[in-house]
């Protein structure tokens, strides 16, 4: 009984996923976004090879030089190679973005699934808790907590996920509620399958699609938030390369050496745009009814 139910669920799922994949690949903007994301990931992964200089090497003689053959993106006020710092900054951004999205998505999914499955008081308490966290303007909350909790990559990830899981929780709950009442879940329940087993085997796989799209976009949001925190001086600390920090330091050179600001700014814009496009593409691919 149980194995047959499981296989029925699996084969029913296989086709929609294949079709969603086909729709995603047919969406030119989404594929372009994915290409940017892959490019940034490769650059971040192979940063030691891609960067042509030591991102931390200071050379006062080279201060604020424009782009050249030796320094593609020029140098900053301390004579550090901007290209190498942008390359290593990709590592920081991706680490924070992916770390935050992963943590927030996991928390959000657990809260959403438990709320939907248990219902009643548990649902009420969890949703009020979500409301309380939603009462905080995201960036302001992060700024406030980071100010007292201290700086650094780990703290930034922790704080950004602490105030970032609520949207995922709501979407996961809504999706799980629909699946909970579906025939195959009712059938499994009637057959006496345990709660945890149903949630993990039936509810989660069938309610994960909407979460995926939001999670992809959230990576971009987290990268933006990290850059904002670093820009305000409460995020990543010098000398670790971070695009937000580079932009903040470059802002005073806007009149004399705008390239110090423009290159990390451009990298940030492109990366976040990549994740937003992938998120949009997933949304359209996974929910074809929304786009007619």
């Amino acid at each position, binding site marked *: 009984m149980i194995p047959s139910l499981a296989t029925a669920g699996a084969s029913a799922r296989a086709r929609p996923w294949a079709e969603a994949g086909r729709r995603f690949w047919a969406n030119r*903007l989404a594929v372009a976004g994915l290409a940017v994301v892959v490019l940034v990931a490769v650059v971040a992964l192979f940063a030691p090879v891609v960067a042509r200089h030591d991102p931390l090497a200071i050379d006062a003689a080279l201060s604020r030089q424009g782009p050249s053959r030796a320094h593609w993106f020029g140098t900053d006020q301390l004579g550090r190679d901007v290209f190498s710092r942008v390359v290593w900054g990709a590592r920081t951004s991706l680490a924070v973005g992916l770390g935050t999205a992963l943590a927030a998505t996991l928390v959000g999914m657990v809260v959403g699934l438990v709320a939907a499955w248990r219902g009643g008081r548990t649902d009420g308490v969890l949703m*009020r808790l979500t*409301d*309380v*966290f939603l*009462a*905080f*303007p*995201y*960036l*302001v*909350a992060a*700024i*406030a*907590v980071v*100010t*007292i*909790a*201290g700086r650094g990559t780990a703290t930034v990830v922790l704080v950004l996920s602490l105030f970032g899981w609520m949207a995922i929780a709501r979407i996961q709950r809504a999706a799980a509620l629909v699946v909970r009442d579906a025939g195959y879940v009712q059938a499994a329940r009637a057959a006496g399958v345990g709660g945890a087993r149903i949630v993990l085997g039936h509810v989660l796989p069938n309610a994960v699609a909407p979460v995926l799209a939001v999670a992809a976009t959230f990576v*971009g949001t987290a990268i*933006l938030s990290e*850059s*904002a925190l670093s*820009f*305000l*001086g*409460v995020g990543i600390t010098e000398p670790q390369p971070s695009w*937000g920090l580079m*932009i*903040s330091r470059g*802002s005073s050179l*806007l*009149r004399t050496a*705008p390239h110090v*600001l423009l290159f990390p*700014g451009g990298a*940030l*814009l*492109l990366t*976040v*745009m990549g994740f*937003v*496009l992938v998120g*949009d593409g997933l949304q359209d691919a996974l929910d074809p009814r*929304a*786009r*007619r």
Partner: protein
Amino acid sequence: MGGYVLRRVLVAVPVAFAAVSLLFVLFFLLPGDPVRAIVGGGNRPISEGQRAAIEARYRLDEPWLVQYGAYWSRLARGDLGESFQDRSDVTQLVARTAPASLRLAFWAVLGEAVLGVAAGVVAATRRHSWLDALVTVTTTAALAVPVFVLGYLLQYALGVYPYQHGWPEWLQFPVQGIGPDRWALGVVPLGDQWRYLVLPAVVLATTSAAIIARLTRAAVSEALAADHLRTARALGLPPRMVRARALRSALVPVVTFLGVDFAALVGSSVLTETVFNWPGMGSTLADAVGARDVPIVLGMTLVLVVGYLVVSLAVDVAYGLLDPRIRVGRERVA
């Protein structure tokens, strides 16, 4: 309708209570030395006198329940604490900086709503045209561009560059500060004031305008495909009326967003005001963060959280006005 408003208020009050309490937990109960946190952490030297003053003010030597009670009684008196650096009163600081922030936010919200809805409607009614593609691409870029990068770009393109190249005066925009600070009716810029207002307002509005445009596009497309509009067409209603009805139902999610958006607006204003040196709450908060002046950060955050909840409540009420399904409940007439 009155019952509906009352229900919303009854939901909002415990949420506000819990949110303000959560701030207390984050600021006073997290592991570590709260005195050290209040003076900004790190290795700043703390004199015995300072430590005693801070402990007395926040009742740090007492059990947490007493600290929590003192926290609420300070708030009840309107005491948001005092700056660690110059002992200035945070409540007065808020009162002094709020008008500049509200003026900037007023124009940003107005601009983003008008522009966003217009772009969304154009895109939705001309699906898959080049205009639609333009809206899609520009909104994606606007969503991805960091507020402070956009701010510096505009400063460079409309302020620094025209100045360096001696463009006519009217093409050079001031890039720092609020200028003469002259307003009529609270929000209408007088004389040259608008030149100082326009760049920060545009920067502050960009992200939300993009989100509104995307929401409106989705909502209007869905509304245009709705069955009841096919009914309206099938009974000969002219396109003008059909479009108006589509817009009316599409406005519901957009108005809801404007409430949620207040949160994003507050975050963006911290960055925008910093970039443009606009003397509002946002730049004050950023300065306090830079100086690790925790009492100011806590006080400002409290004001912003409560302000956000009030705006959310107002939006919930507006939502009910727009959608009778929420306002009049489900009692059956027939």
